[in-house]
């Protein structure tokens, strides 16, 4: 046996990947339900997605607060009673607010789902946003924010988005303690009625749903007054900063700096996006990437450095992000630009490109493993107006993009002059 030579492998690019289709049905009020029935455990995920992200708010933090407070009181139950109900059945009811959407997510055992659905409907129809709950939320969120403002990475994430999108764009704005102080209960109620109770709702189901899942959902949610028309159209203009380089001292005693280097970028609908994902992987998208190999594994400047394409529906950004030792921050920034320059100057060697192709396909195969993962991918496609063609075309791109194409892409998008650069200590 020769331990020096690797066993034969099947190239991941030769593997056939399939995105299992969802089942789609429509409730009486027009709400679409996308369902994946798979997996071995008797567990269930149901997610209600509303067009109620901060894209739709008139005032900072109204969308996130409305979403958070869905669990804090209805006409029938206090916050404690709501929590107790879900927790008694070993269920998790989470809510999250994003840029375009806001969600309510239920994880539960299949056998308990019928006890839980009516209370989810109650949250959507009968939340009352009690003043005293709002006051507790304001106080605690303000304190949480003040703790976060001590962290260089938190500050850096806020500022780089502001530079790229502008403070008045939903992707670029952030919250101050004053925003919490200025929240009014009436604003939450109005947002709730418009964007939840009478909002646009999509439902995603995954796991082992009971046989009558469609009927149960229809009985509880099928007659709610959700909007049938497309909903509210809102557009924002990106207003990037003119100054490109920033250095901020947030903590004089800080022993590390948070570095963000980012540029505005196209979204998934642009033909370059899938190719750019391959280029991004080579640059900083995985453990074997050039940034990791050079800046962590060769120089030891950081615990981790990553690059990624932001996951936004509208405008996007290409971002490089790391926390590095205070005395090597400048050197780290220099190395990032060096790696960009090499990608512009030299075509990627076939051997490295093959590795990245295999890694990306293998990783995608792993990502599709299990019902929750499959529905998450479908949800992302549906919310971004993409079809399964996107899945197969992206795979084709990973398998076929050439070193020359990647070099051309680097020359087009990895020009240092296009990047915002921020160091927060």
């Amino acid at each position, binding site marked *: 046996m020769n331990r020096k030579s690797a066993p034969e492998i099947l190239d991941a690019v030769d*593997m056939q990947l399939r995105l299992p289709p969802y089942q789609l049905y429509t409730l009486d009020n027009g709400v679409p339900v996308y369902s994946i029935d798979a997996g071995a*455990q008797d567990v269930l995920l149901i997610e209600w997605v509303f067009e109620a992200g901060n894209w739709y708010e008139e005032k900072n933090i109204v969308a996130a607060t409305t979403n958070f407070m869905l669990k804090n009181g209805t006409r029938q139950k206090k916050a404690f009673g709501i929590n107790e109900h879900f927790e008694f059945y070993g269920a*998790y009811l989470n809510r999250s607010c994003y840029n375009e959407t806001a969600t309510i997510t239920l*994880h539960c055992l299949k056998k308990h789902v019928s006890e839980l659905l009516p209370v989810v409907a109650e949250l959507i129809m009968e939340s009352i946003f009690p003043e005293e709950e709002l006051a507790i939320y304001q106080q605690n969120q303000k304190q949480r924010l003040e703790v976060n403002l001590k962290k260089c990475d938190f500050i850096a994430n806020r500022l780089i988005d502001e530079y790229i999108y502008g403070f008045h764009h939903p992707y670029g704005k952030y919250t101050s303690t004053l925003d919490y102080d200025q929240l009014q209960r009436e604003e939450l109620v109005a947002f709730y009625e418009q964007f939840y109770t009478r909002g646009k709702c999509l439902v995603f189901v995954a796991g082992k749903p009971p046989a009558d899942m469609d009927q149960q959902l229809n009985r509880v949610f099928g007659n709610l007054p959700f909007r049938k028309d497309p909903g509210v159209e809102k557009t924002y203009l990106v207003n990037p900063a003119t100054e490109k380089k920033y250095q901020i001292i947030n903590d004089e005693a800080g022993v590390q700096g948070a570095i963000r280097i980012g540029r505005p970028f196209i979204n998934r609908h642009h033909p370059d996006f899938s190719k750019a994902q391959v280029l991004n992987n080579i640059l900083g998208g995985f453990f074997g990437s050039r940034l990791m190999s050079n800046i962590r594994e060769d120089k030891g400047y950081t615990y981790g450095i990553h690059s990624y394409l932001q996951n936004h529906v509208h405008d996007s950004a290409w971002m490089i992000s790391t926390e590095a030792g205070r005395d090597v921050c400048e050197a780290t920034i220099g190395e990032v630009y060096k790696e960009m320059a090499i990608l512009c100057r030299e075509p990627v060697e076939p051997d490295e490109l093959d590795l990245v192709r295999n890694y990306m396909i293998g990783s995608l195969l792993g990502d599709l493993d299990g019902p929750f993962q499959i529905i998450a991918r479908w949800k992302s496609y549906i919310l971004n107006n993409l079809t399964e063609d996107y899945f197969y075309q992206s795979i084709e791109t990973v398998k076929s993009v050439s070193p020359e194409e990647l070099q051309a892409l680097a020359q087009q998008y990895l020009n240092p002059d296009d990047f915002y650069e921020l160091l927060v200590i």
Partner: protein
Amino acid sequence: MILYERFVLDNGLRVLVHEDHSTPMAVVNILYDVGARDENPEQTGFAHLFEHLMFGGSIHIPDYDEPLQRAGGENNAYTTNDLTNYYCQLPAQNIETAFWLESDRMMGLAFSEKSLAVQKKVVCEEFREHYINKPYGDVWHIMRDLAYTQHPYRWMTIGKELSHVENAKMDDVKHFFFKHYRPVNAILVVAGNVKVDQIKRLAEKWFGPIPMGDKYHRHLPAEPRQLAARKKEVYADVPFDAFIKTWHMDARLEKGYYVMDLASEILGGGGSSRLYQSLVKEKQLFTGVDCHHFGSIDNGLMAIEGKLVKGVSMEAASQAVNEEIEKIQASMVSEIELQKVKNKTESVIAFEDMGVMSRANSLAMYELLGDAELMNTELDRYQEITGEDVQQYCREVFREDNSNTLFYFSK
């Protein structure tokens, strides 16, 4: 019910195989029976630093990650106070690549000076990122040091101080490897789209030739029973005061572990828990409060911690926590409350068992505890717990004499 087969190679390597043909993937999980508790008190953080060095090339293979990525695989590892675990996932057709890589680094490392020099820096940056450059980052360094006087749980996995990591020498690395990273001290779990016979063949082929090594027998100093409450005050550059209190509890397989696991849920698990309802919502003394333990194999710590609402005194916060403790000691939990936390436990286990990687990891953990079958039977231990048990153990554990309190003040 998680089905698996178990066998032991001649060199003592324990192997467990869990077939799941619904996934295209395979997971290879190797657990080494060594953690931060096995470190020399003057060389803390070593087990974790060592984990990094396991990726710095092995005796026949210059780089671990590259061939795995080429086979479409991903991997990671973690170190705790109790153990070190390495896992990778790759398309099942390429599973032999994982055997080749994992067996080679069990056979021997390259012991590269460059890798040691770089990973010392990387780990120091990890230390700075998580424990120095973060508000409240040193809380558990201080608390462990207060709560333990003898047992090596008194330092954190990352290490007591940067200098311990900075001073690591190649001789220490070699010694550590041959003491702990031998087949007889390891557990291999393979899960996913594989067959038992195939794994038997591969395990014999790749791991069989590795010398057994000496079984590591652990002789850790037991933590003496705590007889008087300990208190400490710290002033730090943080915006708000924080309160942290711990009590010694039973080891991982003792009854008291299961009881206190449920008690931590009753007190601190979710929006209907007692501490959240009383201290955050009703009395508004804390902005958030947690009750948890660390799942430690040896006698662990039960903890209650939270940040205070600005203007609330440490004494008032401390007093309110004590009142909740007294309540759970004085009157028995209701059937509904007990049922709630049992239901939650059932649900947590079901969700954990969804992913093949998580199943492999759990099997390795239970095998380390002495019986992989616990994976299928442990829920019964929770179901048997009564209200009397909760009351009795809360009286025993939550004694003031058994407590360690840290007042972490904003400067």
